């Protein structure tokens, strides 16, 4: 009888555990193993110890070192450009949607959320046409005569625009849900005490949605580090590889032309993973402590 009861939770958790093991944990472990090898995906991996890491991190004459540093630099730039917008903008929209006089809240939310459901490639094709010098409206609107994907800083701008367009909705929904969970009497009593809207936002809303804020901040940052589709589709890494992000190099090495260089690619991926891990942990630590 006792035994029978203890099976129930296993059935609920089981599927997730199995999926996690098969599709996340095992590949991760194998990926870490592969990063210590030379491997072309077909023959058996050859153990090379820390060689891949040494090449990537310290051999400044190596192509892989230049690719890694350039890729990481561009990825960091992408994170710096997009994450603040992807946190602040949805938060502002969510707060403004709380105002009593705003009509069609559901519609506005839907309009902002739908882009997130569209695949990056389809979205990118549309945006490329919008930014096209001859066909698009942007050239006329800004009276600009440059080809945006091929010149900086425009190349970054179009990547940021499509990222924000596709990413605002997801965080917006989380913020709206958590703001609607904040007790109304807090606002009422604050108003009675004479607190203005800004004070109410800073002293009630923000502390109340602390955990959703930390969560979205950490997840958005981790997601931004894994950026791949937007620069690939919009600029193909150009001009002069200045928007060529790390994931593009990793993919090109492992699944590009000719024989695969999967060991080196894995090492780059592991290094990227470590960077994400450190930054996420740091974010969580700092925000949690400040909020407490």
């Amino acid at each position: 009888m006792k035994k029978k009861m203890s099976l129930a939770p296993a059935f609920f958790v089981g599927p997730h555990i199995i999926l996690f093991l098969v599709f996340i944990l095992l590949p991760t472990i194998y990926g870490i193993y592969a990063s210590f090898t030379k491997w072309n995906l077909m023959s058996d991996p050859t153990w090379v110890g820390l060689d891949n890491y040494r090449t990537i991190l310290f051999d400044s004459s190596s192509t892989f070192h230049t690719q890694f540093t350039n890729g990481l630099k561009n990825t960091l730039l992408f994170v710096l450009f997009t994450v603040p917008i992807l946190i602040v903008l949805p938060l502002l929209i969510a707060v403004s949607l709380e105002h009593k006089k705003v009509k069609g809240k559901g519609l506005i939310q839907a309009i902002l959320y739908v882009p997130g459901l569209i695949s990056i490639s389809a979205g990118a094709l549309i945006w490329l046409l919008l930014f096209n010098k001859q066909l698009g409206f942007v050239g006329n609107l800004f009276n600009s005569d440059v080809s945006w994907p091929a010149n900086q800083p425009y190349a970054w701008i179009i990547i940021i625009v499509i990222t924000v367009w596709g990413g605002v909705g997801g965080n917006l929904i989380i913020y709206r849900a958590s703001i609607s969970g904040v007790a109304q009497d807090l606002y009422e009593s604050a108003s009675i005490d004479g607190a203005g809207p800004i004070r109410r936002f800073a002293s009630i809303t923000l502390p109340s949605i602390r955990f959703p804020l930390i969560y979205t901040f950490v997840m958005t940052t981790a997601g931004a580090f894994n950026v791949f589709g937007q620069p690939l589709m919009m600029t193909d890494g150009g001009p002069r590889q200045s928007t060529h992000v790390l994931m593009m190099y990793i993919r090109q090495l492992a699944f590009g032309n000719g024989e695969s260089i999967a060991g080196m690619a894995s090492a780059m991926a592991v290094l990227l993973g470590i960077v994400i891990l450190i930054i996420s942990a740091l974010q969580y630590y700092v925000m949690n402590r400040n909020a407490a």
Partner: protein
Amino acid sequence: MLKKKWGFSVLASVLLLSTVLTGCGGDDDKKTITFWTPLTGDDGAYMDQLVKDYNATNPEIKVKHVITADMYTKISTVLSSGKGVPDLSIIHADRVPGYVKQGVLEPMTDVIAAQPELKQDNYLPQAWSTGTIDNVQYSVPLDIHANVMYYNKDLLAKYGVESFLDDNVVTIDEILSLQGKLDEGDYVVNDALLGWVMLAQIQNLGGDIQQDGKPAVNTPVMKQAFEEVKKINDAGLMTPFGEDGYLMFQSGNVLFSTDGTWSSTAHAGVEGLNFGVTNVYSTSADKFTNRGSSHLFAMLKNEDRSEEKVAGIGQFLEFIRANSMEWAKAGQIVASKQVNESPEYQNYMQSFFTSNEQETQSLYIYTYEYYPYIAEAVDTYCGDIVRGNVDIDETLQTMQKFVEDKIAESAGAAQ
């Protein structure tokens, strides 16, 4: 109530598990030839039709065409696990040397022995010989798909330069002669497949991409090739950097488009675009090259492939050899001579490239084993060099190093 919940969770987990696990199993049907191709575009439909036609002849073993996105990655996976290896696949010419070196291709010896017509004489010679390594035949060709040059007939007439086409070679000098003569917004040539165009110029200048098996990227010939093509850009005759030159050709603003044989169907779909096809422009008036690749039938190593299946593959390839007119519709240069010498084939635009010996020879397929890395380096950097965004010498050094580093990493793994 509790019971109901239980039932639901069991059902849910069973469903989930079964979806997860069905991906792993899959018995190979002994009566079917599994045929993988990377033909994810429109050409996949033409191949579907060919396979359907073959199966309609009621062969003993039917062919099942599986269009496989990311095919080369999947090939790596099935080869390393040894399970689910397709019986037959279409691979690109540049994959053959690497695959043979890694020992993952089965020679076509038995297939060819059973089908006397599957021989070099019946195919475009270079398409056949890309599959010949140390006198062993590893592939049977389907086509050559090449970089070619489309021209806008109306624009040629407008600028009075139809004479460019007289000798079938449009030279860079001829292109440059149009400097200052074009209306605003018109261009002589676009930058479609620019990397392929560069690799053709290497041949036109009598160079190569290798020397004694070592990659040769940072060479005087490569530099010269880039400098020649760069002249077109510097004269303002190439479609601007970062713009869709392919689209600009289709909208009637560009005289020449250097894209692929396979684009002819798309160009034909553009209303009012009056176009023809010729050889890719050249640095010299004496030589022209159209850099090509080839779709090849090949068998990946698979111990479970029965003799019956090998015989079936032979029959299928013989059927394709005799009946692949359908493939011409996809715009490709069909490799089988029976097809490309037939009167019906002359209706297709790409028949230009098999119209005489010189044309046939202009279709050049690189067979150097590290060609893919070199092509990648050229593709990555050619735009910036031709547009004058970077220093040629420095970038050629970077490219040479790029290829050498990649070779060094892969060579160790292949052993």
